[in-house]
């Protein structure tokens, strides 16, 4: 029988070697061994995804590999996350990722979602082409502490501002850190619309949320 440490290593390796099936079977095995799923995530999957993130930042691997690694991680997370008692997650930082209304380009948002998850955040992915009212409503109702918004297109940038305004209107802005990303955005634009930060990339987003926010 495998040891706990071996299970963690196999989980990490399944991510760094892009093997979703291995990730899923190892996650199932960890549960049958009664290993705490939080430990499996933090000591296995997160460590593996951190290696992948570092290699991507160093241009040693590229999006095809990162996305495949993320798929492996999510395969295991789908099994482990439902097994975590809600009380254990009460202190975890919560974040929402979203592509604003009018835009369906979500590859960057999905990388941010992956890196946030790997960084220990509990992420609610709101998807793409989402109306400001829906975003604000979800943030408020679920008391989500971080909003990471993105857009690829210029005409939809103003929907970031509308979302910030909507959060202010419903009284949720004060409890929510807002960070934005996407090629047309800039730190100046973030300031202009009342967001807290503009991410250079997914790693920058996680780094800032952990250290700077």
């Amino acid at each position: 029988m495998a040891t706990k440490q071996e299970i963690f290593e196999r989980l990490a390796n399944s991510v760094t070697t892009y093997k979703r099936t291995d990730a899923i079977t190892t996650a199932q095995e960890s549960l049958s061994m009664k290993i705490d799923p939080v430990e499996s995530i933090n000591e296995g999957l997160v460590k593996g995804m951190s290696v992948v993130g570092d290699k991507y930042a160093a241009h040693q691997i590229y999006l095809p590999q990162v996305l495949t690694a993320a798929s492996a991680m999510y395969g295991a997370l789908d099994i482990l996350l439902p097994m975590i008692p809600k009380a254990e997650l009460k202190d975890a930082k919560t974040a929402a990722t979203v592509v604003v209304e009018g835009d369906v380009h979500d590859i960057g948002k999905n990388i941010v979602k992956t890196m946030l998850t790997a960084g220990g955040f509990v992420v609610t992915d709101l998807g793409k082409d989402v109306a400001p009212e829906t975003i604000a409503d979800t943030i408020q109702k679920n008391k989500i502490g971080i909003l990471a918004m993105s857009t690829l297109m210029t005409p939809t940038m103003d929907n970031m501002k509308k979302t910030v305004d909507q959060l202010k209107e419903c009284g949720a802005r004060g409890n929510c850190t807002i960070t934005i990303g996407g090629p047309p955005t800039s730190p100046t634009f973030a300031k202009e619309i009342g967001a807290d930060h503009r991410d250079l990339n997914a790693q920058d987003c996680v780094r800032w949320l952990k250290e700077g926010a």
Partner: protein
Amino acid sequence: MKMTMTNFERAQAALANEKVDHLTSYPIACGVCRKLVGDGKMTYRDWANDPEKFASAFIAGQKHFGFDFAIGLMDLSVMAGDLGAHVRMDDQNTPFVDGHIVNSMEDYDKFTVPDITKGRTNVLIKGTEKIAKNLNGKVVTSAFVEGPLLALSQSAGAERLFMDMFSDPAPIHRALKVMTAYDSEIIKAMGKTGINAICWDYLWGNYACLGDAEYGEFEGDKYAPQLNKEVLENGMAMAVHNCADLPHLNTQIKKFKPSIYSMAYYPQIEGSPSATKTIEGGYADHCLVAGQIDPQVFMRSTVEQVTNITRDLCQEVKTALCKRGLKSSYCIASGCEVPPSLECKMENIKAVVDATAKYGQMQY
């Protein structure tokens, strides 16, 4: 060299790196120029579906601003739409794909080359023909066409495509062969329009997305070189546009050898090549490089700010060209399309052209 050159003379001279009165300029103002036509209320949807209206914006833009080039960019969902993907057409937003058509690996084998005499491909070809008819000889004209990997990613969804490229490349190659055949059909049709060039959008040659090995395998080593060659064989010059943050310059400029390379600059991203770095790296030695004004300034800056940005870029470019022993092989352009939204400030487009004429003057 004449003291004052026509737009066409200047563009031709810059393409040959010969002496010019001042640097060439081309803010990539395409859909936004529909605001210059008629009562200024033409919708994006109408513009992108009617060859006459499509061309009229470029003709009006040239007349109003005095550009040196005209590059007939419509949007990046033309091919995917005609391949069967669902394209969302808002009245005042760039059309985009919101319904991909690859849901399994088997779907990659279902692509066929559509009839290019129909659909928006036909609108693009007929519109390009009208651009050529009206603007050839006044400016250097070019069609704008999606490269095979971009057309496939728009149809399949980039995320899915990238993962499938990694896990099972064979069906992707079969689909890319169809995309390449589709592009070949477009080249042949464009060759008959009289347009001077074809500008490819080879967006995925970008180190933020693909490394040399991946880009080479899925576009840069095989499909793109074939298409580039066919453009020349059909009597047109070949250009490349890539507005990504970390473009594959060695492949897309030194290997592909385009006449024009249009690129963006992201100062906050480490490694994103500035105009100086690009010229210093030898990329403007045999190619007219075009860039790198941030398209956002057309929405959010004042005329004074845009003038100053253009002035500074002209100075940077002139210094770098001089150091490299080059005469004119850099065009003051936007790094990507000027935002086509209704809020875009047309006076800022004019400011780039005017400031280039003033601050881009060359003394030899």
